[in-house]
């Protein structure tokens, strides 16, 4: 038996953001949609944290909650998001030991944090630029809002960032409609990193672009991140992007965190049956062409998550306990993790690893059932 939950570790020097029991719900006519329903996750300094999961799993809502951009009828029901920025000006040193709870901080204290300490590259980056303002005005207005500097210095800062994403200085004088989709995306990235924020949240920023542009922009993001030493939370449903970019990953399903580990751990040795399913959906170009297998069953509704483990209706290994008890995100013992990929730092929410209910044969049978599903 090992049902020990992740110990509430003291705020170490390495942690930048510690989210505990985040619940972000939406009021609808049909009832409360529990889009994010009890998520724990810790982001460490200087890492790229990949947040993965199918659309509708709540990953975007989670990061919008951390940024406090949730709009009615959505609201932050409960939880904590402790943020430890390096310097928090205008905060009277409140950025120290206790951390700032982004979920509860008053708006007038939150606003100075935005962009300077926690910046955002939104999902609709293509439409994130004001069509009636020049690019320079849209970046400089934010610099002047947060920093005491002459306009010429702000101008120089902006040009430096535009150059960093490979844009010519002339872009500054242009209007958004004069730019291509990829250029707009680069402008948004440049704008978001202008003040070298402690935390950069990027929410599927490249989805609307074609593959070549996507690749180029991902590469630029990687370079910038190294140059500026940024901490990045990267949200995407695309596992291939995470493989390329992320140091650690969190897998979300049905408003909850299923598994957390380093990218290598997740890809080489996925523990949660849902993660295993996700990995299997990635086509392998080195193998002969086979039909890519999806995870059987339908994603559940946030109005009515399954009781017990949220994944159990679609899980090939599900047993009675899965229908009754919701598994907690817990550490795993090294012996539960095969082929030498360490258990260090790994968290998984699955009864297979927290109970002794499953025998080797059970697990093999699950695999068997799964392969039988193949045509």
């Amino acid at each position, binding site marked *: 038996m090992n049902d020990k939950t992740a110990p509430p570790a003291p705020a170490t020097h390495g942690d930048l953001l510690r989210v505990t029991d985040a619940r972000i719900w939406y009021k609808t006519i049909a009832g409360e949609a529990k889009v994010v329903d009890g998520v724990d996750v810790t982001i460490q300094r200087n890492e790229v944290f990949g947040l993965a999961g199918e659309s509708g799993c709540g990953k975007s809502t989670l990061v919008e909650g951390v*940024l406090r*951009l949730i709009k*009615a009828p959505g609201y932050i029901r409960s939880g904590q998001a402790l943020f430890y920025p390096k310097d928090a000006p205008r905060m009277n040193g409140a950025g120290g030991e206790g951390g700032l709870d982004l979920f509860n901080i008053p708006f007038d204290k939150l*606003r*100075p*944090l*935005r*962009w*300077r300490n926690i*910046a*955002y590259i*939104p*999902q*609709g*980056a*293509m*439409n*994130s*630029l*004001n*069509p*009636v*303002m020049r690019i320079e005005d849209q970046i400089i*207005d*934010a610099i002047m*809002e*947060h920093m005491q500097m002459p306009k010429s210095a702000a101008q120089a800062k902006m040009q430096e960032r535009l150059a960093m994403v490979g844009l010519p200085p002339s872009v500054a004088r242009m*209007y958004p*409609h*004069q730019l291509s989709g990829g250029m707009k995306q680069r402008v*948004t990235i440049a*704008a978001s990193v202008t003040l070298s924020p402690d935390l950069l949240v990027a929410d599927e920023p490249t989805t609307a672009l074609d593959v070549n542009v996507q690749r180029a922009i991902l590469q630029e993001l990687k370079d910038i991140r190294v140059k500026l030493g940024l901490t990045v939370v990267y949200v995407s449903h695309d596992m291939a992007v995470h493989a390329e970019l992320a140091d650690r990953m969190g897998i979300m399903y049905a408003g909850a965190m299923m598994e957390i580990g380093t990218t290598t751990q997740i890809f080489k040795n996925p523990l949660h049956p849902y993660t295993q399913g996700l990995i299997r959906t990635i086509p392998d170009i080195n193998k002969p062409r086979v039909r890519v297998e999806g995870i059987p069953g339908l994603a559940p509704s946030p109005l009515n998550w399954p009781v017990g483990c949220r994944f159990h209706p679609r899980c090939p290994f599900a047993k009675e306990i899965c229908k009754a008890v919701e598994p907690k995100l817990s550490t795993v013992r090294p012996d539960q993790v095969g082929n030498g990929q360490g258990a260090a730092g790994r968290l998984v929410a699955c009864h297979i690893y927290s109970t002794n209910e499953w025998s080797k044969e059970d697990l093999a049978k699950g695999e068997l059932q799964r392969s039988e599903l193949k045509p």
Partner: protein
Amino acid sequence: MLKQHPLLRYYLGKIAAYMLTIWGAFTITFFLFRLLPVNPIESWVKALERQYAKTIAAGPEMVNFYKEQFGLNGTLLEQYVRYLYNVIIKQDLGPSFINFPTPVQDLIMQRLGWTLLLMGTSIAISWVLGLLLGLVAGWFREKRWSGVLTNVSIALSQIPAYLIALFLVLFFGYQLALFPTRGAYDAQFTVGLNLPFIMSMLWHSVLPISAIVLVTLAAWILSTRSLIITLLGEDYLHYAEAKGLRTQNIMRRYGLRNAMLPQATALALTLGAALSGQLLVEVLFVYPGLGELLSRAIQYFDFNAIMGIILLSIFSVMTASLIIDLLIPIIDPRIRTAIQSS
């Protein structure tokens, strides 16, 4: 050649539609009035005869003389061609009947200033106020006061200005006797740039302007509010918020500025329609504008005055809309791109 220049084709199309619409509207109105079974000159001569209780010997000659003066001789088609010739080539709208022999263009010029003053001021006040109130009503749409403001605007938006004017006249004019209710200024002052006259003029314009502002303001509030609510769903507002800008700044530079173009367009169209917009308000306040002139002209079937005012009104509506059509591809490059790729 036009196929390769979509923008040129767009401009030529707009100009053609402009000329066609003015011509069509003018022609319909012209024949509509001339086909009415009335004979203003004969009835005028008869009225004179009745007044002096004797037959005017030269009655028929007199009628013919005046018919010629007013361009009512000959067939309808001849009248039509003659009128068009006089207007286009000689810039002459003919003599007026109610103020014979003042040419209609002079009569219009005397009145135009008053109407422009009344309508221009009302429209300017209600546009500026409506944009600001609509902006906050849309932005804070969850707030109680926003709901109240919206509902009051909805209630006011469809009530004709003349009914509001009636209530204003009753309460502020008669009951409280605060404001004058007739005319544009007190007769004892000399017309010109002197303080007493201007004060009197402003004083007289309070009630008519209030009546027009109340109803048009409601419409501006509602349209701006719904524009802003549509904008609130835009990604760039979301992003502006994530940039940590002040709410005021976001409202002004990201919200209002994007609502400006459609509202400026609507403003131009409203200004174009201003000349014939609130005729009854002018009548009610005996305000010496074009509307009051038109309503008298109709009662006496003063064809030249009627046609002159209607033609001016059609012309100003269409010109305002043409200017908008021609300017929009220049102001908004998104639309230019859309035209070019069509």
